[in-house]
C-alpha cells in the first residue's frame, strides 16, 4: 500500500489552516465588500446596492443641497493617530535600546531576572495597565496631589483627557514590545567585535554607531512594527485616557458599529487601516528579507 506521504501532512495542517482561512481571511474579504455597500437604516447594510459613499465620506461632507464639501475631520483623526503612533514608536525605541543594551551587558543570571521584570508587565492585561494610569493622571490623582503637596502648582493639572495622557498611555502600554525584540538581537552579540573596535581606537560613540546599532537593527525594526501597528489601531487607550477630544482611528471605527451605525463606513475605515499596515509589512519584508524575523 503506497500513498502520497504529503497527504498526511496536509491533513495535519488543514484544521488550523481552514480555521484561519474561514474565520479570518474570508471575514476580511467580506469586510472589503461591505465597505462598498449602502448603510442600512439601523445599522447593517443594504445588500446589492453598491456605492463608493463610504470612501467619499472620508474626505467629503454632503451639505443640504447634496453638494460635496471637503471635510478634514476624519483626515485629522487619521493624521493624529499616525502622529501618536509614530511618537510612541520613537520614544519606546529611544528608551528600549539602551535598556536592552544594558541588560545584554549583565551576567546571564542577572539578565534572566531583568527580563523577567520586563515580561511581567508584558503579560499583564493592557486594560488593567491603562486603568492604573487613570489613578495617576486624574485631578486629585497621585501626580496632581503630589505636585500640590510640594507646592509646585496651585490649580488642578488637568492631565486626563488630553493628547499627552494618551501619549503616556501608549508609551507605557507598548514599551515591553520594543525591549524584547531588541534584547533578542543583542543577546547573541559577539562582544569581541566591540573589543576589536576599541583596539582600533574607536571611541564609545563610534563603537555604538558602527557596531552595536547595525547589529541590533533587525530587532529594532521588528520592535518598531510590533509597537507601531497596535498603537495605530488601539481603541481603548484613547477611549479611557483621551476622552472625546483625542479620538484615534480605532475609536472612529468602533463608533461606526455603536452610536453612528454606519457599518460600510466602519468597514472602509478598517480596510484603510489594514491597507496601511500591509504596506508597512511589505516594505519590511522587501527591505529586511531574511535578516531576523518578527517572531
Amino acid at each position, binding site marked *: 500500500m503506497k500513498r502520497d506521504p504529503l497527504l498526511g501532512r496536509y491533513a495535519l495542517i488543514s484544521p488550523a489552516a481552514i480555521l484561519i482561512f474561514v474565520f479570518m481571511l474570508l*471575514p476580511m474579504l467580506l469586510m472589503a465588500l461591505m465597505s462598498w455597500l449602502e448603510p442600512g437604516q439601523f445599522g447593517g447594510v443594504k445588500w446589492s446596492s453598491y456605492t463608493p459613499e463610504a470612501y467619499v465620506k472620508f474626505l467629503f461632507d454632503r451639505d443640504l443641497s447634496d453638494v460635496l464639501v471637503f471635510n478634514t475631520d476624519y483626515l485629522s483623526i487619521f493624521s493624529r493617530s499616525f502622529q501618536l503612533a509614530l511618537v510612541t514608536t520613537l520614544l519606546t525605541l529611544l528608551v528600549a535600546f539602551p535598556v536592552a543594551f544594558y541588560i545584554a551587558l549583565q551576567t546571564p543570571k542577572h539578565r534572566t531576572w531583568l527580563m523577567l521584570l520586563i515580561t511581567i508587565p508584558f503579560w499583564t492585561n493592557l486594560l488593567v495597565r491603562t486603568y492604573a494610569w487613570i489613578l495617576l493622571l486624574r485631578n486629585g490623582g*497621585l501626580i496632581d496631589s503630589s505636585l500640590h503637596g510640594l507646592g509646585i502648582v496651585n490649580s488642578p493639572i488637568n492631565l486626563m483627557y488630553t493628547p499627552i495622557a494618551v501619549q503616556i498611555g501608549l508609551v507605557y502600554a507598548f514599551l515591553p514590545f520594543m525591549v524584547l525584540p531588541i534584547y533578542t538581537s543583542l543577546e547573541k552579540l559577539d562582544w569581541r567585535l566591540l573589543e576589536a573596535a576599541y583596539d582600533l581606537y574607536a571611541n564609545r560613540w563610534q563603537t555604538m554607531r558602527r557596531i552595536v546599532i547595525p547589529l541590533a537593527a533587525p530587532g529594532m525594526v521588528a520592535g518598531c512594527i510590533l509597537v507601531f501597528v497596535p498603537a495605530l489601531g488601539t481603541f481603548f487607550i484613547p477611549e479611557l485616557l483621551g476622552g472625546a477630544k483625542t479620538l484615534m482611528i480605532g475609536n472612529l471605527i468602533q463608533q461606526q458599529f455603536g452610536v453612528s451605525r454606519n457599518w460600510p463606513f466602519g468597514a472602509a475605515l478598517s480596510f484603510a487601516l489594514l491597507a496601511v499596515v500591509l504596506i508597512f509589512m511589505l516594505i519590511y519584508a522587501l527591505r529586511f528579507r531574511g535578516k531576523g524575523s518578527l517572531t
Partner: protein
Amino acid sequence: MINPRNPLWRYWSLGVLMVVFFAFLYVPIIVLIVLSFNQNQTATIWTAFSFDWYKTVLENPNILRAAQNSLIVAAVATVASTVFATMAAVGMAGKTFKAQNAFNGLVGLPLLVPEIVTAVASLLFFLAIGLELGLTTVIIAHVVFCIPFAYLPIRARLEGLDPKLLEAASDLYARPWQAFARVTLPLLLPGIVSGAMLAFITSMDDFVITFFVAGAGATTLPVYIFGMIRTGISPEVNAISTLLFAASLLFVMVSFFISQKK
C-alpha cells in the same frame, strides 16, 4: 562570554536609566495594588487598610459570571488551538513543500492584522452568516487568534529536535505513530506546554475582539472591567484589576520556573 567587570562595559548613565525605566514600568502597578487595599470610598486618598473591596468584588454575581465566561472561553480556546497548532507544527516539519509558504502566511495573519480590524471583520462575518453573537462566537474567534501563539513555540521546539532520534526509532522497527508517541511527543512537550500557556493568557487578556463579538450574554472579565472603568474609577475596579495582575504574575512566574528547570 563577556566579563561585566571589564571597565569597557561600564556605562554608569545606563544604570540611572534602568532605575527610571523600571520605576516608570512599576509605579502605576504598585499604586494600583496599594489603593486596592484602601478602605476609603474615594479611590485615591489613603485612609486605612482593608480587604473590603475584595469582598465586594468576590460577592458581585456579575463579576463572577464574567470570570466564569472568561475561564470557559480560555479553556476551550487553549485546548483547541494547542491541538490544532501541534498538528500543524508536526505537519510542517520535515521536507519542504509548496503549500508551506501559504500556511506560514495564514498563521502570521492573526499576529499582524490590527486587533480592531480582526474584530470588525469577525463581527460582520458572524452577522452575515447568521450566527447569533454569544459565547460560541467568542470561542470561535479566540480559537482562531490563539493558534499562532500556540504554534510558534511548538514549531520552534520541533525545529530544535535532532532528526537522528527519529531515524534511530525507525531503525529499531518503531512504526511512525510509535516513533511519534514515544520520541517526538515527549520531546515536544515543553514546547506544547509553553504554547498552551501563551494561548491561555492571550485568550484571558483579550478585550478588543471579545468586545465586538460577545453580544449581551457573553461578557468576559476584561469586557466587564472596561464597562466599569468607563463609568469611572472605583475601589472595586482597583481590587479586580489587582486580582487580574496577580493572576498574570502567577502565570509568568510558573512559566519562568518551568523554563528554568529545562
